[in-house]
């Protein structure tokens, strides 16, 4: 896809989308914190990042597509009612995810501002 946006901006927006999906899964875990038999889920996010970083150095021809993978939370500990949501861990993950999201948004906004400055010839 030929655009004025470089692959890095594409990757950034894909990662922002991944944080949104991750937030949804965390919200789902929190909503079901008292549901018997509910299995906690997680989005394989760090793994996605590592894979994206594993792309050849320089500018990849196209932004690597990030598909968030939802899987059972491997850290989940089963309670007596079969629920595996650890409330504290989920809250920490949510705080971390929000920071990730805001950081990525900030970087993307910065890049767009640079482009805006270039277009305006400033």
């Amino acid at each position, binding site marked *: 896809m030929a655009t004025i946006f470089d692959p890095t901006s594409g990757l950034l927006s894909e990662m922002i989308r991944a944080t949104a999906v991750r*937030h949804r899964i965390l*919200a789902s875990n929190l909503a079901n914190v008292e549901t018997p038999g509910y299995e906690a889920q997680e989005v394989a996010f760090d793994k996605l990042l590592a894979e994206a970083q594993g792309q050849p150095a320089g500018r990849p021809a196209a932004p690597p597509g990030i598909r968030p993978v939802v899987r059972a939370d491997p850290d989940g500990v089963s309670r007596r009612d079969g629920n595996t949501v650890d409330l504290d861990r*989920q809250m920490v993950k949510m705080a971390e995810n929000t920071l990730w*999201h805001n950081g990525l948004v900030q970087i993307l*906004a910065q890049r767009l501002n640079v482009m805006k400055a270039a277009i305006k010839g400033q």
Partner: protein
Amino acid sequence: MDGELTTLGISAAGLTAQRTRMNVLAENLANAETTRSEDGGPYQRKLVVLGSEPAASFGQALEAAQGNLVKVQEIAPSTEPPRLVYMPAHPDANAEGYVALPNINPVLEMVDLLAATRAYEANVTAVQALKAMTNKALEIGR
């Protein structure tokens, strides 16, 4: 935007479920000594049964990253027998002088109420985090 709305829906369902639970617990506590209920006999302790279901429609379900809503499946009466307390002067006492009081232990209800409050607060935090993230994303290009 659909993604944000679905996420908000998941948290809203969590809030609704926990609030329903708190309402039922309050009803149980208020009726801990009620000997005459609508259907005769002592008040029956009520239990909220929660269940989860996929948040998205079938089309979106194929995407697999949909999350799960929590739904109140049922508000069921408890099967515990009533407490029998010896109060021969009570108008509802049986021939032996025992009164059947509701099968409610206020301590259990209070502990459950605390758990429901914490779960409610966790969902509120999720909504606030989503609002912060969405507001931040709106700053792009500003």
